[in-house]
């Protein structure tokens, strides 16, 4: 019966390192607010019953009590300000870019209407240089065609594989409107802002398949902007990654870097607007 009121059980399982800290903060606030709820509702319901209109009983004419006012000003001030300070550390750990631990791997994630794009460094282990001015429909990441490091980069759509127990640093942006990178089980959420790169980090502790949702309204198919994150053991991940490198090499052998370079010669033009856009 009591379980019915335990709303904390509706949390999806937490699998990331700092996630349990965030859940604990939620739980602390949960118990504080439940206590305040019962206190105030108790007072409210008691006074509604006790002081309902009764024949011959007159209300009190008192205008207030300064001591009471003082008490219920000072106590909440300390309680709430203390709570704010108490929760700050978890916030800094999760979001402050100065406190991000040394990443074991870095990956780029781009939001677009209505898909997630992922870029891995490829065979050379280095993410090629990118610049938004090179962006085209065929080169959404804006890879610099003159940078050889970019030629072997692996680009995935809506499915990302990562190893468990590693500090993963995501460089997050968008090529059109604002999206939001939300993985419920990781307790991670960060808006993807066109024109800026955001840093998101996590360390997932459990192998499995997790859903990546867009949490910021991004257009008609916003609800359908779903990605999948496969968290693999290091061996499985390496196996998958080697396969991708091989696929990429095959692909490049069939069609040498030509397409990328072609796209690069016609970057998105700022100076020649096309009339029709609506």
């Amino acid at each position, binding site marked *: 019966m009591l379980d019915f009121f335990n709303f904390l059980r509706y949390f999806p399982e937490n699998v990331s390192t700092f996630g349990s800290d965030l859940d604990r*903060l939620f739980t602390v606030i949960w118990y504080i607010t439940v206590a305040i709820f019962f206190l105030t509702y108790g007072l*409210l319901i008691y006074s*509604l019953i006790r002081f309902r209109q009764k024949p011959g009983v007159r209300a009190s004419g008192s205008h*207030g009590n300064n001591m009471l006012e003082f008490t*219920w000003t000072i106590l909440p001030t300390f309680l709430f300000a203390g709570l704010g300070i108490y929760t700050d550390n978890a*916030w800094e750990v999760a979001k402050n870019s100065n406190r991000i631990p040394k990443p074991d791997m870095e990956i780029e994630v781009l939001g677009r209407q209505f898909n997630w794009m992922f870029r891995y460094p490829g065979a050379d282990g280095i993410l090629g240089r990118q610049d938004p001015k090179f962006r085209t429909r065929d080169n959404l990441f804006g890879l610099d065609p003159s940078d050889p490091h970019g030629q072997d980069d692996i680009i995935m759509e809506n499915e990302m594989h990562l190893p468990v127990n590693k500090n993963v640093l995501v460089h997050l942006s968008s090529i059109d409107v604002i999206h939001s990178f939300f993985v419920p089980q990781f307790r991670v959420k960060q808006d993807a802002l066109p024109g800026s790169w955001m840093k998101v980090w996590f360390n997932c502790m459990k192998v499995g398949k997790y859903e990546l949702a867009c949490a910021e*309204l991004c257009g008609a198919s916003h609800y359908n902007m779903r990605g999948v994150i496969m968290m693999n053991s290091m061996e499985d991940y390496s196996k998958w990654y080697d396969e991708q490198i091989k696929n990429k090499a095959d692909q490049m052998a069939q069609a040498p870097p030509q397409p990328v370079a072609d796209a690069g010669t016609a970057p*998105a033009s700022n100076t020649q607007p096309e009339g029709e856009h609506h």
Partner: protein
Amino acid sequence: MSASAVSVVDDSHAHTHEHHGHAELSFIRKYIFSNDHKTIAKQFMVTTLFFLMVGGLAALMLRWKIAYPDQAVPLIGHLLPDTWAADGVIQPGFYTQLLTMHGAIMLFLVIIPMVNGFIGNFAIPLMIGTDDMALPTLNMFSFWLNIPAAMLMLGGFGLESGMAGGGWTVYPPLSAIAGLGQTLWIAGLFLVGFSSIMGAINYITTILNKRAKGMTMFRMPMTIWALFITAVLITLGTPVLAASLAMLFFDNFLHTSFFIPANLIAASALDGNSVWAGGGQPLLFQHLFWFYSHPAVYIMIVPSMGAVSDIIATFSRRPVFGYKAMVFAIMGIGFLGFIVWGHHMFQSGMSPLLGTTFVLSTIVIAVPSAIKVFNWIGTLWGGSIRFSAAMLCALAFVSMFIIGGLSGIFMASAAVDIYIHDTYFIVAHFHYVLFGASLFGVFGAIYYWFPKLYGKMLNESWGRKHFFWSFVFFNLTFFPMHILGIGGHMRRIADPTVYDFLKPFQPMNEFITWAAIGLGFSQFFLLGNIFWSLKYGKKAPRNPWNANTLEWAAPEHPGHGNFDMDITVYRGPYEFSQPDRESDFYPQWIAPEEGESHTNHVPDVKHVVAH
């Protein structure tokens, strides 16, 4: 106009306006383009109730789509064009338009004009004891500007490309690259803002300059204090909204780049070649927008708080507990309201260090809110409580405000907000504050002041039924949304079944939808009651609730000019159940009897505004 000439108007002399030298007014000047603050209040009430039903219908269609993503909307689904609802099933694009319209209508065409336009216009001149607003013509424009503004906002209804779909928060670039429906929406909201500012200037001027003899600032009822502080918030905040909307309009229509970064590649609008020069920053819009829109949530609730304080005092037969603390708490909320906007942007990419700052300012705003709740309970404590329909709605305000306030503490903490941001937890939170508190406060205000508005009593029993079913269905609708939010359910998604982790919540979504339908239909109790009572309601006495404030000194159904006697204020607004008096109330306008030992019956000359 000489303000000392308090006009002599009551029902039988409704057409004599010698003191103002008015000629007989034509039908149009009297009922349509009227300068009378009470007529304007009625106009606001009727239009906002109309839009409440429109916005509610949009909400029910949204709910239907979420609960039954593949099923046709019953009754109305097949009436809609196929581009909106193919075979009656709402399309995702139309869904985003509906959620935009629901939010925008409820906030800008219902709640803000309800608490300010309706309560403000009605209450201010009557409660401070004057004949009308300081600027009655401006007042008229503030209502009539709303009509073209609403038509613009909803104008996309007639366009093939549809209505605005960028959410009521209109974040660019999404809103900037959208079509004509969005452009019209931005222009419409710009005008609504103007209407708001016109009203607010008028309220401030009237309250500062037109108070009756003896009505010092600290003898004003809580409703007037609340409206006064709200008006200050509007005049400081709304111009910022206007500026941001103007820039957004330029970005959308003229392709400037205030908020648009370079090299966007969007699926529909831009087609590879950006027509925007770029160099703008989308976050700038969010800062400007929330700098208005956070104070705006107080604009939406503070006047309701004031009305609720008056209702609770009257029906508990008790003075408002800690009157000055209540006034200072509202001032505190108003001030803090301007330095907390960043809590809407914790996950937006704003510097996390700013996040820490905004956590502290945000969490401290719980303090004045707590002061208000404890003082309301203090007012009930020791009272002699009458559970009228108005009182029940006011109590709903207090109890729902507690829940909405407590759920706010979760998202005030940036760390906890990471997970619950943009989930149904937020949806639950602001519906508890805006519907559970603010709108129930307005319902209470309607039940409380209807007798003075129309000279007829509303039917109490229907009023209580309206309260009961609204209260029950409201909680059944919105409380489970907390659980959805804890489960990670995102806002604004048309079809939750796309996600595996949300599938277990689908039965709860269906339950919420049926509760929401019940909530919508409960509102017909209110509408029916209003129409029925206008025709068959009992004639209202002058002071039906035995209240103390000045509006009850006016005749049963006051005409233009309001009062039929000279109004002098002798005491504060809440002299209920004073031990030295036989009667349990002591109206502000009743002169003290000879030899009475009241300390505050001599008007403080310093504060009397020359009238």
